[in-house]
């Protein structure tokens, strides 16, 4: 044991080799605090704006609804929206703080958060699929209606499906990138837990 104590002492001496006096940049620390606070505020504001914007848009379009199909689509969209929001809020349970103030608990929390990010992305794809199901017949009906009134039905198809396609492509690209990052992070964290 004396030999082993000597080993630790030798390693400690090598480990704690004195470094030159350290400079901690308090201004940089202050900038980081501000950036992080701003980032969190922006995320919260974006969520609130998107929710409010979605509700306002829904109400505006619903107020101009001409027939029952419009109401069916809007009700369906509102249900999708409300469902996604409820699942999002519900999934936040247990993700605020580690269960104990230890590094093992922090590791578990980090893993849960990663899994939750991946789950949110998957749910997003299903919501997108739901929107296609909901809006495809509606766009078609609108186009036919417009055509019957002598208007540009093709334009309605292009605008409607074009918007859906752009939304899907954007979500697909961003979602894939975020998903790859989250999976890589999850693999690292699970590896650390196995260690």
């Amino acid at each position, binding site marked *: 044991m004396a030999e082993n104590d000597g080993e*630790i002492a030798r390693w400690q001496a090598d480990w704690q080799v004195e*470094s030159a006096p350290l400079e*901690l940049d308090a201004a940089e620390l202050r900038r980081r*605090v501000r950036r992080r606070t701003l980032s969190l505020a922006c995320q919260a504001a974006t969520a609130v704006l998107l929710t409010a914007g979605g509700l306002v848009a829904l109400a505006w379009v619903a107020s101009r609804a001409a027939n029952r199909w419009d109401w069916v689509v809007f009700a369906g969209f509102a249900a999708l929206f409300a469902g996604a929001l409820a699942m999002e809020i519900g999934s936040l349970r247990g993700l605020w703080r580690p269960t104990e103030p230890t*590094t093992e608990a922090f590791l578990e929390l980090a893993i849960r958060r990663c899994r939750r990010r991946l789950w949110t992305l998957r749910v997003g794809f299903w919501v997108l699929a739901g929107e296609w199901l909901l809006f495809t017949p509606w766009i078609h009906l609108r186009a036919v209606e417009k055509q019957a009134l002598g208007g540009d039905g093709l334009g309605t198809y292009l605008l409607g499906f074009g918007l859906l396609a752009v939304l899907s492509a954007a979500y697909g690209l961003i979602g894939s990138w975020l998903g790859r990052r989250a999976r890589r992070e999850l693999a690292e964290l699970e590896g650390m837990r196995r260690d």
Partner: protein
Amino acid sequence: MPETVALAGAHRPALPVEKDVSRAELAARFETLLAREAAALRRVAASYAADHGRREDLFQDICLAIWTALPRFRGEASERTFVFRIAHNRGIAAAARRSTATEDLAAVEELADGGASPEAAVERRQRQASLQGAVRHLPLGLRQVLTLTLEGLSQREIGEVIGISEGNVAVRLTRARKTLRERLGEDRRS
């Protein structure tokens, strides 16, 4: 010999402050804590990041996390346990976010002028770099126990930081020492 920490600038980041602790008291407490533990926190950062830039980023991240958590610290554990826990949590988060697993060449840290000859200083640096490199290759559970031991924490304190029993700490430490011995032996041969 206590490490010297020069805090540039007179301002402190603005954070919500508990009623019974003034901002000035918190700032003073933070400065005292950092003056005592900054070198150790730098070494913890070195056990998670080889690259000098990433190590500095992680060190800043650790300091930021300590500053943010300090108002909520109620003395449930020792201050050492408190700061090391935060340091290792930030290290885990940084290691998980790392995009590649390749080990960059670590920048050699400047050493204090302790009056030693240049050759002795170079040799000390090389031994430290070799030890840090070997420690970084340890699995996380063993790495944490070993680095905390090298920082002088007791097995009880290490158990509090990580969230395992003292017995488990002893077992991990034995495995860590064996692995590190083998690793340092391999480094010397290569």
